[in-house]
C-alpha cells in the first residue's frame, strides 16, 4: 500500500505521519496518534461522535481522508482545555450534567465550540441546528442545550 507522508498541526503541536491513501482522519487520530478522546460511533458519518475541528471547521473525522489534512490544523477534544484550564464549554458540561455515558460528549463539545466561535450568542434553534448531526442516546439533549447556553453566557 502506498504510504504518504503528511505533516499537520494537532492541538497546537506539529506532527508527521505515514498514512495509506485510505486511512481516515479518525483512524489517524485514534490509532496512529493514540488520541482516543475522539470517538467512533459509526465510521459512516451518521453519529457525530468523531467530530473534530479541521482548520477551524467541524468535520466528521471518519469521513475525511488522512491525506487531505496535510498542512492542516486539527483540534480534538484533548485540545480544548488550555494549560490545565477547562474550556468554558467543558466547565458547563460538567456543571449542568451535559454528559451521561459521555461517548457523544467529545463530538458534541467540538461542534459546540465551532458554533460559539462563529456565533457567541446562539439561540436555542441555532444550537439545535449546529448539533443536529450529533446523536446522543442518554441525555435527551436538554442539558446539552443548557450547557451550551450557559457557556455562551459565560463568555463562550
Amino acid at each position, binding site marked *: 500500500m502506498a504510504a504518504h507522508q503528511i505533516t499537520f498541526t494537532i492541538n497546537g503541536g506539529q506532527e508527521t505521519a505515514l498514512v495509506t491513501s485510505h486511512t481516515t482522519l479518525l483512524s489517524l487520530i485514534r490509532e496512529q496518534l493514540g488520541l482516543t478522546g475522539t470517538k467512533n460511533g459509526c465510521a*459512516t458519518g451518521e453519529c457525530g461522535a468523531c467530530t473534530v475541528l479541521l482548520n477551524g471547521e467541524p468535520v466528521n473525522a471518519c469521513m475525511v481522508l488522512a491525506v487531505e489534512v496535510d498542512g492542516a490544523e486539527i483540534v480534538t*477534544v484533548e485540545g480544548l482545555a488550555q494549560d490545565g484550564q477547562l474550556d468554558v464549554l467543558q466547565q458547563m458540561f460538567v456543571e449542568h*450534567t451535559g*454528559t451521561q455515558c459521555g461517548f457523544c460528549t467529545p463530538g458534541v463539545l467540538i461542534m459546540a465550540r465551532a458554533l460559539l466561535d462563529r456565533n457567541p450568542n446562539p439561540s436555542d434553534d441555532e444550537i439545535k441546528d449546529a448539533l*443536529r448531526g450529533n446523536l446522543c*442516546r*442518554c441525555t*435527551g*439533549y436538554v442539558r446539552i442545550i443548557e450547557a451550551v447556553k450557559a457557556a455562551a453566557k459565560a463568555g463562550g
Partner: protein
Amino acid sequence: MKEKAFVIGQSVRRLDAVGKVIGEALYPGDIDMEDQLWMKIRMSDRVHARVTAIDTRQAEAYPGVVAVLTATDVPVNEYGLIMPDQPVLCGPGSSKAGADIVRCISDQVALVIAESEETAAVAADLIEITYEDLPAVVDVMQAIADGAPQLHAHAKNNVLNHYRIRHGDINAGWEQAEVIVEGEYHTGYQEHVYLQPEAGLGYIDDEKRVTVVVAGQHAHEDREQVAHALGLPEEQVRIVYPAIGGAFGGREDMSIQIALALAAWKLQRPVKVVWSREESIIGHHKRHPFTIRARWGATREGKLVAAEAEVYADAGAYAYTSTKVTGNAHLMVNGPYEIPNVKVDTYGVYTNNIPCGAFRGFGGPQGAFAAEGQMNKLADALGMDPVQIRALNVLEEGSITSVGTPLPPGVTLSKVLAEGAAQSDYWHKTGAGWARISPTEQPTTPAKRRGIGMAMGFKNIGFSFGAPEENWATVEIHGDAKIERVVVREAGADVGQGAHTVFAQMVADGVGVPLDKVEVIGHDTAETDNSGSSSASRMTFMAGNAIKTAAEQALEKWRSEQRPAVATYRYVPPKTTPYDPETGRANPNFAYGYMAQFVEVEVDIETGHIDVVRVVSAHDVGRAINPQQIEGQIEGAVVQALGYAIMENLVVKDGRIQNPFLSTYLIPTIWDIPRETKSVILEYADPRGPWGARGMAEMPFIPLAPAIVAALHDATGIWFDHIPLTPESVVSRLREHNIGVI
C-alpha cells in the same frame, strides 16, 4: 444516623464528568495492549440452518492470521442469561447437541484472530461455511401453530413460556360490566443504539486469570457465563468494565465477552475486537415486538370489573431474558389498577428472528401500551375524564393486584396521579372530580391538530419472581486520628446513569465525610463482590441499602478504634415469588416506582408528522439522592420513548434486519425532542429504600407511548393501536377515517 443534607439530595457533579469532557475517560475500544491481536467474528449467513462443514483452510493460510476458532474449540458450547440455549459458536463437532444449528442471523460461527483488524476481516470472509437450510419461522402466530418448525427441543410449538392469571371470576366480571372496550395492540422492535458499539479486549492477567475488558451491566454475571463456556472456575475469570458508553438493557446479555475470553485463553495473547455499528445492530438483542389483545369492562360509574388479555412476545431465536420480560408485561398489562376479575395469558415465543431481551422498561412499555390504551378508551366510552377514571381505580395501600397480593408498602399511585395532573397545567380538581382546565386550543393552520393526553404506570425495582437478589458493598475507613479517606467497593455498573456518583454520595452521608474523601472502586470482579446488574432500576435501591449498612458498621468499627475500619454487607431484599402456573398468584416484586405523564402533541394531518410539544413527567422517586441526575434520566428516557413511539422503525424481513445503520434506523436527534419536558419529582419515602429512595430510571419511558396515543385521539378522534407511529402509518390510519384527504 442523622441526615447530612450537604450530600444526599444535592446535585453534586458527576465524579466522571471531567474525565469525560477532556477526552480522558477510556471506553473499551480505547484500550490497547502490547502485542495485541485483532478478532473478527463471523456471524451466520442464514436464519435457520444446520452447519454441516466449516472450511477454515483459506482463512488460516491468509498472511497475518494467527488462528481461526470454531465450535470444536469451545469447551462448553452453550450460554444464556436465564438458560443456556444458545451455542457460543455454531458448528459441527460441538460439545453440545443442537449446537450445529444456526437459528438467527446473529448466531456466531467462527472467530478469526489476526495481527491486524483488516487482516482478520478479510480472512473472515474466506471461511467457507456449508449450510443445510432448515425451514424457518419468523411469525409468532405461525410459530405456535401445529406443524411449525421447532427451534428448541425444550419448547413445544416454540412456546418458551406461558403465564396465566386467573383472578376472581372473569364471567361474573363480564356480567357486571356496563361498558366494554377492546383493542389489539402492536408494538415494534427497538434497537438500543448506545453510542458506543461493542468493543473489548481479552488477555491473561498477572494472576493467570482470563480477563475481559468490556462494557456490560453486570460484571459478575458476565464472569459466570464466560467461566461456564470455558469450563473454568469463576476465580480464573476476571471481568473489568472501563467507562461504559450507554447500555439501556442492551448489554445485559453476552455479545463479544465469551469470544474474547476464548481467544485470549487459547492464544495466551491479548485479543481485541471492535464492532462496527452494523455489527452492533445485528449482533445484540432488541426490545420485543408484542401483540396484545385486550378486553376490559367497567361499570357506568367507571369502576373496573373485568380485564382479559392475550399477550404474545416474539422472543426471537434464544431465550435471553424473555421469560422475565414477558413476566413483567404479564403483570403490567393490567395496569396499576384494582380489577377484581382478571384473566391473562402471556406467551414468550421462539422464532428465527433476532433475539429479544432487556431494554429499559423490560416489558413494561408493551404492557402499559395496552393497559393505558384500554383505560383511555374506557374513559372515552364513558364520557369520563382520563385522570378521574384512573383516580377511581388506582391501587392503594393494601389493594389486591391482579396476581392476588397487595403491592409492597408505600403505594403512592394516587398521589403521583394527582400531583402530576395538577402540575401538568392541563388538569385541575373540581367538585365533581378531575377535569381539563380548558379544551385543547387548536392551531390556526388547517393541517395541524393539537391534542393532550395522559397515561400512568408502575414498574418494579429489582429482580422479580423469586430470582435471587443481592448486593454486596464494602466500606473502608482509612486514617488515624481523623478519617482521611473512605473507600467503597461496589461492583454496580455505571453505564452512564451516574451510579458511581450516587454511591459516593451515599457513602459520604453514611460515614459523615465530605464527598471528596470518598473513592469508589467498582467495575472489576477482582476487586468487588457481586452487586447484581445495572438494570430493573435497582442500583440506587440495592447498592444504597448495602452501602448504608456497610457504612454504619464500618463507622462502628472506626469508633472502636479499628484501623482501617472495614465492613462488608450483603443486602438481601424481601423475598419475591414466581407466578403460580395456574392462577398467576405471586408476590412478584419487593419495591416499585410510580409515574404519570401528560403530553401535548401537534399532528400534521397531511404528512402524518407528530410533533411532541410538551411532556410533563411525574415520578415518585422516594428520595432524590441527586436531583439533577434524576432529571437527566427523565429527559433521556422521555426522548428514547419518543423515539420508540413515533420514530424508531427496525424493519426485520425474513429474519434479517433491513436497516442496520443510523442513516436508516432513525433515533431522535436534537431537533426531535419535546419543546418542553417538565420533571415533577415527588419524594414519598419507600419504607424499604435507602434514605427512602426508589428506583426511577426506566419509569419515564413506560407511559409515554400510550400518552401520545391519547393526545393523538384528542387531536383527531382516532385511536392508534400500533407503534411506531411513523408518518406513513399515521397518514394511512387518518385516511381510513377520511381525515386529511387532500
